[in-house]
């Protein structure tokens, strides 16, 4: 597969690993904030190639994991409405709310469909004019412009039976909130490659300038991740802090302007409730009032509910990189992929799920 296989070559990986091993010594904490990076790291087994002093931490990069329990309960409320079809990315199906999940509700008759693209959800709306279709809009900056386009299409085509339940979130504000907690010392960030294809490098500059922490925008193949680590280590060794792009074949410094414009047209920043991090100002997206007709919250009058976190669940601290899954009392005992307590275990790239599958 072109532009994939070449970046998985074993000999290149070996070499990068050996270059990295020269940076032995002080403990270095590098954080990745992208669920796809978490998956890629675990699936390829990269951590085994790193020296002991280099610690790769998984941060809050899983948009499913950080969806608040209240939002999940609201999605379940929508799913219980008669003659309503829920269209969603597959990742959301098993996430537990307070009492149930989309997958469990489906087995009692709710029409819930996993789709690959929100465009397919719009098609479902066109084919089922006598039903309402709600798309669960979850994801970061990579996915938000896509939902924006589909909502814009729906408005242009005057499709009345389509709406989205929006809980998109933005990564740079979460990174800032994490740094502000000062809970752990982060020496460098692996920045999400595809989020950066959209937003470019500008949004990370404050981390380098104000917090003096190097950031490298990383691709997802093993050689990409290892090269990124090497670039971070080189900056750290020189006491430098700047934003670099490792993933040059897919990220431009300015990002993707048309996608950014689409985001601005359809969405407005708003405060958002991140599971484990609490409310982070201006870290979420809500629909611009011009698109009110497509806002499922308004259309179906969904009110946020008060929820309680499951007892002993450490998802929040795991998401902030403060604890590892094995430090949670529930991990691999009461909480496992068949019976998850919190989203970190449910999502295919949640930290606990990845640890359970690949690290036991």
């Amino acid at each position: 597969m072109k532009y994939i296989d070449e970046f998985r070559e074993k000999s290149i990986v070996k070499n990068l690993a050996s270059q990295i091993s020269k940076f032995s010594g002080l403990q270095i904490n590098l954080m990745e904030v992208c669920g796809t990076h978490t998956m890629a790291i675990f699936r390829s087994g990269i951590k085994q190639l790193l020296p002991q002093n280099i610690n790769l931490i998984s941060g809050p990069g899983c948009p499913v994991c950080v969806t608040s329990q209240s939002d999940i309960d609201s999605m379940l409320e929508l799913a219980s409405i008669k003659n309503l079809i829920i269209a969603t990315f597959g990742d959301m199906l098993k996430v537990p709310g307070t009492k149930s999940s989309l997958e469990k509700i489906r087995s009692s008759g709710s029409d819930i469909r996993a789709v690959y693209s929100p465009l397919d959800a719009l098609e479902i709306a066109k084919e089922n004019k006598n039903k309402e279709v709600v798309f669960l809009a979850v994801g970061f900056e990579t996915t938000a412009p896509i939902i924006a386009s589909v909502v814009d299409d729906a408005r242009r085509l005057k499709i009345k039976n389509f709406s989205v339940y929006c809980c998109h979130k933005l990564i740079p504000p979460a990174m800032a909130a994490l740094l502000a907690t000062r809970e752990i010392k982060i020496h460098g960030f692996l920045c999400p490659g595809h989020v950066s294809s959209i937003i470019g490098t500008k949004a990370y500059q404050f981390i380098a300038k104000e917090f003096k922490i190097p950031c490298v925008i990383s691709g997802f193949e093993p050689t990409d991740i290892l090269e990124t680590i090497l670039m971070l280590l080189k900056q750290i060794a020189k006491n430098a802090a700047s934003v670099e792009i490792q993933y040059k074949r897919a990220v431009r410094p300015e990002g993707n302007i048309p996608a950014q414009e689409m985001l601005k047209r359809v969405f407005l920043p708003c405060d958002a409730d991140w599971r484990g991090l609490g409310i982070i100002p201006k870290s979420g997206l809500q629909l611009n009032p011009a698109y009110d007709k497509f806002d499922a919250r308004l259309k179906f009058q969904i009110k946020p509910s008060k929820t309680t976190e499951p007892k002993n669940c450490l998802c929040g601290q795991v998401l902030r990189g403060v604890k590892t899954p094995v430090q949670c009392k529930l991990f691999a005992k009461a909480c496992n992929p068949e019976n998850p307590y919190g989203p970190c275990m449910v999502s295919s790239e949640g930290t606990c799920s990845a640890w359970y599958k690949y690290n036991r």
Partner: protein
Amino acid sequence: MCLAIPVKVVKIKGTLAEVDMSGVKRQADIRFLENIKPGDYILLHAGFAIEKINKKEARETLKLLKDIYYD
């Protein structure tokens, strides 16, 4: 939140392209990109093309990985 795959553009019709990955085909919305031609590679995410693969940069990254990182 970032699963996007490099796929090859086969045909273009307006803002839609037919893309191919090892014989698997899908339609992709290319409204976010300009000057896309058949033969280009784009990153496919949830049915949209979010970026065009810069072939020159890809070649240079590989060259760097193969040459300069050897002792």
